[in-house]
C-alpha cells in the first residue's frame, strides 16, 4: 500500500503514515492525503489522485469524485502564489469587485487564470471569514484584511519582486492590510510555502513551530 508513494519525500511519506493512523476508517484520510499529494505533485493531478486511491483502497474515480466537489483541490497546475479575492456580501459592500479588478489588472490575468510565467494565479472566492476586515484577500490561503486598491497592486509587485518562499500573514497584513476583523494578537511564526493550506501535519508550512512560542 505505502509502496505506491515510495517516490514521495521521506517527510511526506511519514506524514501520510501519520495521517492514516489518525482515523479509525482510512477513507477519512482522503482529503488530508490529497493535500499532501498536491504538495508532491504541485497540484491534485490525476497521478496524485491515483496514489491517494491506492493508499486508502478505493478507486481513482472515487477520489476524483470527492476532489471535484471541493474548490481547494486544484486539478490543474496553478501559480506559485494563489491570490483569492473574496467577493461575498460583506466584501462586496466594501469594494471587493474593485479589488478584484485591481488584482486582475496588476497581475495581467483574469480570475481563474495563471500568468504565463507561472508565478501568480487569481481567483475570486466566496466568504473567507474576514468580513469585519472587508475587503479581504488570501495569498496561498494566508489572510490580508482591509486591503485597498493601491495595496492590492503593490501586493502583486511584491510577490513578483521578492518571490517570498514563505508567506506570513502578519508580514503581509503589515505591508498591505488595514482594518482587521479583530486583534490578531501575537505574531504567528508559521506561514504557507505553497498554494495549499499551511498546516504542519499536511507538510505545507515552514517547518514545525512546536515549542516556538
Amino acid at each position, binding site marked *: 500500500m505505502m509502496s505506491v508513494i515510495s517516490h514521495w519525500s521521506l517527510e511526506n511519506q511519514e506524514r501520510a503514515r501519520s495521517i492514516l493512523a*489518525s*482515523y*479509525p*476508517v482510512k*477513507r*477519512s*484520510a*482522503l*482529503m*488530508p492525503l490529497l*493535500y499532501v499529494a498536491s504538495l508532491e505533485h504541485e497540484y491534485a493531478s490525476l497521478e496524485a489522485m491515483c496514489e491517494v486511491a491506492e493508499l*486508502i483502497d478505493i478507486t481513482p474515480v472515487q477520489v476524483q*469524485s*470527492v476532489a471535484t*466537489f*471541493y*474548490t*481547494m*483541490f486544484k486539478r490543474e497546475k496553478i501559480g506559485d502564489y494563489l491570490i*483569492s479575492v473574496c*467577493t*461575498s*456580501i*460583506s466584501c*462586496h*459592500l466594501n469594494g471587493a469587485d474593485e479589488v478584484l479588478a485591481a488584482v486582475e489588472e496588476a497581475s495581467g490575468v483574469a480570475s481563474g487564470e495563471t500568468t504565463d510565467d507561472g508565478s501568480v494565479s487569481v481567483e475570486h*472566492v*466566496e*466568504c*473567507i*471569514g*474576514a*468580513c*469585519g*476586515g*472587508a475587503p479581504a484577500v488570501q495569498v496561498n*490561503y*494566508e*489572510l490580508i484584511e482591509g486591503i485597498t486598491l493601491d495595496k492590492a497592486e503593490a501586493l502583486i509587485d511584491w510577490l513578483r519582486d521578492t518571490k517570498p518562499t514563505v508567506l506570513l*500573514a502578519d508580514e503581509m497584513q503589515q505591508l498591505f492590510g488595514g*482594518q482587521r*476583523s*479583530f*486583534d*490578531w*494578537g*501575537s505574531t*504567528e511564526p*508559521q506561514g*504557507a510555502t505553497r498554494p495549499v*493550506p*499551511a*498546516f*504542519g*501535519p*499536511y507538510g505545507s*508550512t515552514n517547518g514545525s*513551530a*512546536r515549542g516556538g*512560542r
Partner: protein
Amino acid sequence: MTDKILTVRMDAHPSDSHTLSRYLDTGGYEALTKALNDMSKEDIIEEVKASNLRGRGGAGFPMGVKWGFLAPAEPRYLVVNCDESEPGTFNDRQLTERDPHQLLEGIIISSYALGVSHAFVYIRGEYPKSARRLQRAVEEAYDAGYLGQDIRGTEFSLDVTLHLGGGAYICGEETALLNSLEGRRGEPRLKPPFPAVEGLYAKPTIVNNVESISNVPWIMTNGGTAYAAIGPERSAGTKMLSISGHIARPGNHEIVMGMTWRELIFDIGGGIPDGKALKAWIPGGASAPWFVPDEHLDTIVSIDDVAANGSMIGAGAVVVMDETTNVVAAAHRIVRFFAHESCGQCTPCREGTSWLEAVLKRILDGNGRPEDIDLMLDISDNISPGLKWPPAMTTICPLGPSTVSPITSITRWFRPELEAMIAGSEGPVG
C-alpha cells in the same frame, strides 16, 4: 453580572492568550479537573442542560437536549464544527486563533461526559491559522497530560484529530460535514437517522459548534444555573456577534442578548460611517431574511424575538447596509453564493438557485422583464412553498430555502426600487 465569558482571556492577554502557560495562569483546565474528580458524567450533562445553552452554529437547538439524544452504542464520537462559512460570520475564527485551549478544554470535558474517546475538529480549509493554533494547543495538551491515555490520573483517555476541509460551505451542515470527514463529497444526509444515533461511521455522534463547546469550561466552573441566569430566558448566556458591512466598528462583539437592534447597531456597532442612513441589515448571516429600520430597530436581539419577526440570529452574523446600497446587487451577491455552494443533490435547490441568480443578473444588467419579480417569487415558492418563516422544505437541507431569504427581503421591503430598476431597463433581449 457576567457580560463576557469567551473573550475575557484574549482581551486581557492579547499577546499570549493562545498558549498553555497563559491558559493555566488564568484558571485554565481547572474546570476539567473539577469535572474529572468531582462530577459524574450525568452531573456534567445535567449542568449543560441547566445552562439552557442553545447551539451557536445557527439552528439554536438546546445543546443539553442534543446530548440527551446520544445513543448508547459504542464507539461514539464528538465532532466539533469549525467549518464557519456563513457569509458574515467570523467568530469561530477568533475563538480558535486566540483561545484554542478554551475550546480544547470544552472538548475534553464534553468527551468525558459523552463517553467519547476520539474527538474531531473539522476546520474549514481557509482557516489555516486556526488549524495551526489548535494543533499547537493539542500538542501542548498531550505533553501536559490533558490528552492521551489516562488523562490526569483517571481511566479516561481521549485523542483529538484536526481535519481540514476543502472549501465547501455546505460542509457546515452537520451531516454533510460527517460525509466530508468520512472522505466523501459533502452532501447532506437525509434525517432521520440523526447523527446522535447514526453519525460518523454510522456510530452515535454529537456535532457541536466551536462557540457552543467553548462555553463548557465556564459552565462547569460556575454552574449551568449561573449561565442560564445571563440574558433573556430563552437566549441564555453570551453570544459572539460578527458585525460587518457598512458599520463604524466592525468585528466580533460578545454580548448578552436582550438589547434592541438600535442599541446593537448604533451603540455597540458605532452606527453607520460617514453620516449615512441605515437602509437594511441581515440579523443572522446570508441565509436570514433582512430587517429594515422602519420595522425592526426596536426589536429585541434574541433568538426568539428575531424568529417571531420572521428571521434568525443564526450563527450571529450581522451585515449592515447603508443608504447607498444597491439592494438588488446585494441580493444577487447572496443568491450567487448559494448557487455556487449548492451541493446539487436536490432539484429545487440545484436548479432554483441558478435560475434566481440568472434572473437577478439580467435585472442588474439592464435586461429585466416586468414579470421577473413574479418569476423570482414563483421559483422561490418552488424551493420553499408558501415563502414562510421558518421555511418549508422541499430539500434535504436548508441551503435551498436560504436562497429565498434575499428574494423575499427585496420584494417585500424594496419592491419600488426593484420595479424601477426593471422599468429603467432596456427590456427583454432576444
